[in-house]
């Protein structure tokens, strides 16, 4: 609490003209400062009744609803002890009520599986991206994406294995913009020490846990000397506490160049929000496209799982051609998080077997199969594994 009020009073002293602009920044990050100090060490107990978990499901727009229906289908078929609480968010509305309901539901259950919610440009700029709002309200500070080449998918580069950890709440996505003079718009990019330390710490912990050798920080500190400079400094500080892991850094434009020519030099990468967006999409493209890679957003208390590249897929919605792999693998990550490891392994194995051995591919990776055909094949493989299932 002391930190919060000190920060507010400092902002009033610094520059009364800037009070408005700084005030916004301070309000947003005052809470970050306090929450870091009063960080709770207890995660809330899982929503588990009678051995069954409850997970919030947000269908979203585009291909989200159909893919999540398939997830439910597979779960029901495999007798996974998970019940879904469906919360619909309508991207066309201007009010935040349905978004608040979704956030409350996730707070209640602790875990969510979601599709992407569309952000319509036609609405006023004050209507913020719903996905972003969800991430910042729940403080899901780490976006983790594991890009692995799949043997059954034709790509230009083989054997890629990169983990990308992206700061998920601040940076360029702070949504603090204003038009100071007519025709001149300023957008603020915020980097804080606390969040940078937090994400660096997460990255190194994860690297150690998974036995990875190297962490690369991606930045543009030669231009944004203070902002990205701070991020880099925090990464270096955290790196000093992990002498078994090599730490290096690379400028973001060079990183993208290296990714398309020599992607095998990368192991674990950590970076602020916008570069994370670019790098994760480049890596997803390298391993075969948006339909293959699952993503997870972790906070201290909550976790939300979705596809890594967060596409709405409006153009292919309702046509039964979307690739269910990413969403199904994301649901497996969710099952792992719920400690339902057996179910997770079973479904993941079936998905990967369908991808790599049966060659039943959807259109995005060059095949002719429909979504339902792929899902049916997955369920058949699960059944042949001898586990308890319902009727096909």
């Amino acid at each position, binding site marked *: 609490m002391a930190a919060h009020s000190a920060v507010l009073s400092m*902002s009033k002293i*610094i520059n009364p003209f800037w009070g408005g602009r*700084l005030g916004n*920044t*301070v309000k947003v*990050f005052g809470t970050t*400062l306090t929450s870091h100090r009063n960080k709770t060490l207890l995660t809330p107990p899982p929503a588990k009744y009678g051995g069954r978990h409850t997970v919030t499901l947000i269908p979203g727009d585009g291909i989200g609803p159909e893919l999540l229906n398939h997830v439910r289908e597979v779960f029901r078929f495999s007798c996974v002890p998970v019940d879904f609480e469906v919360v619909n968010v309508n991207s066309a509305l201007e009010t935040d009520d349905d978004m608040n309901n979704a956030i409350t539901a996730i707070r209640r259950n602790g875990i969510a599986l979601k599709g992407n919610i569309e*952000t319509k*440009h036609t609405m006023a*700029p*004050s*209507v913020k991206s719903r996905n*972003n709002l969800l991430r910042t309200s729940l403080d899901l500070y780490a976006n983790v994406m594991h890009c692995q080449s799949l043997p059954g998918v034709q790509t*230009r*580069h083989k054997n890629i294995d990169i983990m990308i950890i992206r700061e998920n709440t601040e940076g*360029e*996505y702070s*949504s603090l*913009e*204003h038009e100071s003079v007519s*025709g*001149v*718009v*300023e*957008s*603020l*990019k*915020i*980097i*804080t*020490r*606390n969040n940078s330390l937090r994400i660096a710490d997460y990255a190194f912990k994860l690297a150690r846990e998974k036995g990875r050798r190297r962490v690369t920080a991606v930045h*543009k500190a030669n*231009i*944004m*000397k*203070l*902002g990205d400079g*701070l991020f880099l400094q925090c990464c270096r500080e955290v790196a000093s506490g992990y002498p078994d892991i090599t730490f290096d850094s690379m400028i*973001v*434009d*060079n990183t*993208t*160049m*290296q*990714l*398309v*020519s020599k992607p095998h030099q990368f192991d674990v990468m950590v970076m602020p929000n*916008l570069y994370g*967006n*670019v790098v*994760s*999409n*480049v890596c997803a*493209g390298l391993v075969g*496209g*948006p339909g293959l890679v699952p993503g997870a957003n972790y906070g201290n208390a909550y976790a939300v799982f979705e596809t890594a*590249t*967060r*596409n709405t897929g409006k153009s292919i919605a309702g046509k039964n051609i979307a690739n269910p792999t990413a969403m199904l693998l994301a649901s497996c990550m969710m099952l792992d998080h719920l400690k339902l490891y057996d179910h997770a392994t079973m479904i993941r194995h079936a998905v990967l077997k369908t991808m790599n051995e049966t060659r039943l591919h959807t259109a995005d990776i060059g095949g002719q199969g429909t979504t339902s055909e792929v899902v049916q094949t997955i369920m058949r493989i699960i059944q042949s594994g001898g586990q308890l299932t319902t009727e096909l």
Partner: protein
Amino acid sequence: TSPVQHETFPLRGTVTLIPGDGIGPEISSAVMKIFEAAKAPIRWEERNVTAIKGPGGRWMIPPDAKESMDRSKIGLKGPLKTPIAAGHPSMNLLLRKTFDLYANVRPCVSIEGYKTPYTDVNLVTIRENTEGEYSGIEHVIVDGVVQSIKLITEDASRRIAEYAFEYARNNQRTSVTAVHKANIMRMSDGLFLRKCREVAENYKDIKFTEMYLDTVCLNMVQDPTQFDVLVMPNLYGDILSDLCAGLIGGLGVTPSGNIGANGVAIFESVHGTAPDIAGLDMANPTALLLSAVMMLRHMGLHDYGNKIQTACFDTIRDKKVLTKDLGGNSKCSEFTAEICRRIQDMA
């Protein structure tokens, strides 16, 4: 503001040549030799740019360099080293500010003979070069909280959009795609997008599309042939232009041009000064040569440009005389001589 002007260039064009540092002088002389072999009507004026302190304490480029550029309006520049802790900003930044170089244009075309995993790349990235995320305005709000300001203005957005469509029209390109993140940066990228849409209304012959930055990255590494001309603000342009350079083989083979107000244009190679091979006749002049070809096209001297480009690509495709970075072990002078020979055989 006036639309992009198209002056008819005189047949004898003067070009201010800035050789640069490191391998700069040797690749510049290679380009001059090749132009001589092609009998291109270019008169070179060599100038050096090192930062000097002008009256009032502001850093500026030497006055003779500025005078030459103002007269010739066209420049060709080799790599310049940016000394650390020199007290003055980078030379590239100084040049950009001096001549208001607002558009950075990078055509990325796959080079037959220099194999990369990506074939048939043929796109152009046009990047706004003056504002955006590189405004350099940063503050420490309180200890541990830093704010960087990204500036998007109506004028700069309109100017770059107009240049992009003019370029597309003049170079027979069929579509222009605006790259943005207006779903997150609603106001700033929203303004950029609006300006692009407005300018698109005046160019109905060119197809205009908009795409999110992440979607562009995703699709670029899967199928770069779907892109034609891309226009975008500063940071996205920086990242995407380097990404596209990586697709065709790196900065050693990528040309680049900077267009400024008042008809000024400076074409440059974007690789580094390579001090380790400077003076050893090992450098690859392709990047600077292709930038010079861009320059010839800008001046309306398409025939010369095509001739030189064909000779260069044929040499690389033939694979007999290649510099070390292209996979051969010939000298820079041998590579240059081979290109000159091909040009003379063509005449």
